[in-house]
């Protein structure tokens, strides 16, 4: 039986970093991946493909908005392969980078599906050939997540898709119903709408992206509806069915019936432990369907660590990478500092949204009346030049109007712009830094200055009052 110091299950962002970190610590490492390619769902079915599609959707949207410069109409029958045209190159580059990294670090790559025999032993079944057993002192579970399948949504990957299969579409449907109001639902709904597909987004809550403040998500919904999309909030789906010919029929509890060519069910994702038989290792899923870990990313079993989507939120590739690295460090006793809690969230919708730190709601709950500074992108020179209508940057400050508690942004460039706020927070700068510093002009970074001035203005008003 082959033995390793560390076996990592899964080659997504968490698994990749976990295996490389363990190898760099001088250990013998194997990485197990059920797909033929490294990278997991992030690379092949989610993050990277959807962002590639988004880039073209943005181009299409911009060309439509600039009809005066060039008359543009998207061919009705455009193929998805055209819209994800650079995907193969991106994936190839990514795969080659990962393979090189794995080989360079002498990590043994195993193509197969893992199953726990005990806390130290796993069995790998392969697509061809019999199963093999391996032992390891430490095991890192980084098997990612899979889409949840609600009982009333018969996903067939032909008419009714989940977030892993939606990009197997070969052409743009005429209409698409998107179930859900989370990150994946919001991203795909706005991307397909920007491409001219008639999208109806349905969710039980009043607004999508409930972890962000309503004034930002309202702008997102406004932008989505401006493009022609329909948002049906506070609506519960009763049933979904394919009519056997050309339409998916979605019936809501309030009696509404929505017909569309295709449907995407984005009802969240759950830990991917199918076939892992974690019980044999002494592990169980928690009430949320994830693997529980402590602050060191250690599971209930001493030698087994877990990282990435399989342990639940934040389920961000960025956080997963760091968790993977830390899981290996902790397992091997390699010292690491405390993990920053300040992880930005990026939603690659059209428009983008991003946040770091506390929301206004969270800050108010914690500290009472907080001071908020806002800057609308249409008031910023760069925003005017770029024709951004639904952009806003919001700084959440403490009740004194000094400490930055959080930043939220909606609008193009949000996922990049957020890092300015993040760095200010990490360096414990107060809000004045945005006024005292000089940014390039014209850039959207100016929004920080405008929002900060608003905070400072309120601060002065408060001090004059007393």
């Amino acid at each position: 039986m082959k033995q390793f110091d560390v076996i990592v299950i899964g080659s997504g962002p968490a698994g990749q970093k976990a295996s490389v970190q363990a190898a760099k610590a001088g250990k013998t490492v194997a990485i197990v991946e059920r797909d033929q390619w490294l990278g997991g769902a992030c690379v092949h079915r989610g993050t990277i493909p959807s962002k590639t599609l988004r880039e073209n959707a943005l181009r299409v949207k911009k060309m439509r908005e600039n009809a005066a410069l060039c008359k543009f109409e998207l061919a009705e029958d455009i193929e998805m392969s055209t819209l994800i045209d650079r995907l193969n190159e991106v994936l190839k580059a990514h795969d080659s980078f990962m393979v090189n990294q794995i080989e360079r670090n002498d990590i043994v790559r195993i193509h197969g599906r893992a199953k726990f025999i005990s806390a130290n032993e796993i069995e790998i079944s392969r697509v061809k050939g019999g199963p093999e057993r391996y032992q390891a002192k430490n095991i890192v579970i980084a098997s990612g997540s899979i889409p949840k399948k609600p009982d009333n949504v018969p996903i067939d990957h032909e008419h009714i898709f989940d977030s892993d299969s939606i990009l197997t579409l070969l052409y743009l449907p005429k209409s698409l119903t998107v179930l859900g109001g989370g990150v994946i639902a919001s991203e795909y709904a706005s991307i397909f709408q920007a491409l001219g597909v008639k999208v109806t987004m349905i969710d039980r809550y009043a607004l999508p992206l409930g972890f962000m403040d309503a004034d930002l998500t309202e702008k997102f919904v406004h932008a989505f509806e401006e493009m022609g999309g329909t948002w049906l909030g506070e609506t519960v789906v009763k049933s979904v069915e394919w009519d056997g010919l050309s339409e998916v029929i979605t019936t809501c509890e309030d009696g509404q019936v929505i017909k569309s060519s295709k449907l995407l069910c984005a009802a969240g994702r759950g830990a991917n432990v199918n076939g892992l038989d974690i019980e044999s290792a002494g592990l169980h899923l928690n009430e949320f369907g994830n693997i529980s870990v402590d602050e060191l990313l250690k599971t209930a079993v001493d030698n087994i660590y877990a990282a990435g989507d399989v342990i639940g939120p934040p389920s961000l590739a960025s956080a997963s990478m760091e968790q993977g690295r830390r899981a290996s460090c902790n397992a091997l006793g390699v010292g690491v500092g405390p993990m920053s809690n300040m992880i930005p969230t990026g939603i690659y919708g059209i428009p983008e949204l991003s946040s770091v730190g506390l929301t206004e709601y969270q800050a108010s709950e914690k500290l009472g009346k907080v001071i908020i500074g806002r800057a609308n992108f249409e008031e910023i020179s760069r925003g005017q030049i770029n024709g951004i209508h639904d952009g806003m940057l919001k700084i959440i400050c403490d009740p004194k109007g000094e400490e930055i508690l959080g930043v939220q942004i909606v609008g193009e460039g949000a996922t990049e712009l957020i890092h300015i706020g993040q760095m200010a927070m990490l360096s414990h700068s107060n809000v004045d830094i945005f006024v005292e510093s000089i940014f390039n002009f014209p850039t959207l970074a100016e929004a920080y200055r405008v929002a900060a001035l608003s905070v400072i203005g309120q601060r002065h008003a408060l001090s004059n009052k007393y």
Partner: protein
Amino acid sequence: MADQDLSPIGREVEAFLVKLVAEKKIDAPMLPEVASQVLGLSNDPDSDAAQLAKLIQSDQSLAGHVMRIANSAAYTPNASMISLQQAIARLGMTLITDIAIAASLNTKLFKAPKFTKRIAEIWSHAVSTAVWGKEVARLSQRNVEASFLCGLLHSIGRPAILQVINDVTKDLGQAIELEEALYLEEHFHVAFGEVIVQQWGMPIIVQETVQYYHQYQQDNSISEQAMIVNGAAKLASGTLLAQGTELAGLLEDIVEGKVFADLNLYEDDLAKLIQLSGQVKASMEAMRV
């Protein structure tokens, strides 16, 4: 059999087939029964789109013609319709009915009395491949919708060749041994199929599948769809070959093949696939109009 074993008439037919392929002058046959049923449907006020789709899908040749016309410059300039559902959804039932009728009236009817049995086998296999293709694609999370058409048309070159052989030998007043005809069918079907789907203006994915399904490793860009059809064709062969209760055992042997490993299907995935054999057989039967 090898090339040198061909009889003089076999050689003559072979030369004719080479010329047809080179000049891309190949006409696909069509079953008249289905064509007349489309006409019947169009005159029935109670008929619905589901019946039309079922009828068209039941016939490899008619489905091909309908998709060719639906993909022509007149309706879809970029030739990207990949399924009848898409065509009906986008172009409407009336237009598709018209297209089906136009296709049936303007195309040479399929009559090859010497090869009736063989053509029926090819057709059954094509339908079975189409149905299996959808299930293989669904299980391996690849495009399901296109798999039906790709499977249905993957062997379109075979009946077309037999039609030509039938016509040529009839014109020459000579008979050809079945073994020779089958040899020529095997030898030319890809080239014929390639030309036919190209002439029909089928979407690139269909053209490349017909071209590469038997050697899917050759073209990375299309390997997935070609791979699905390759696997589905193997399952279809087993489905048609098996008698009574031996189907599951036969399919278990078939899924040991390399293509299923290349599709990254694990033992339990393959077990799920084999469990679908009853459903697939039922679908095949339903498509026999």
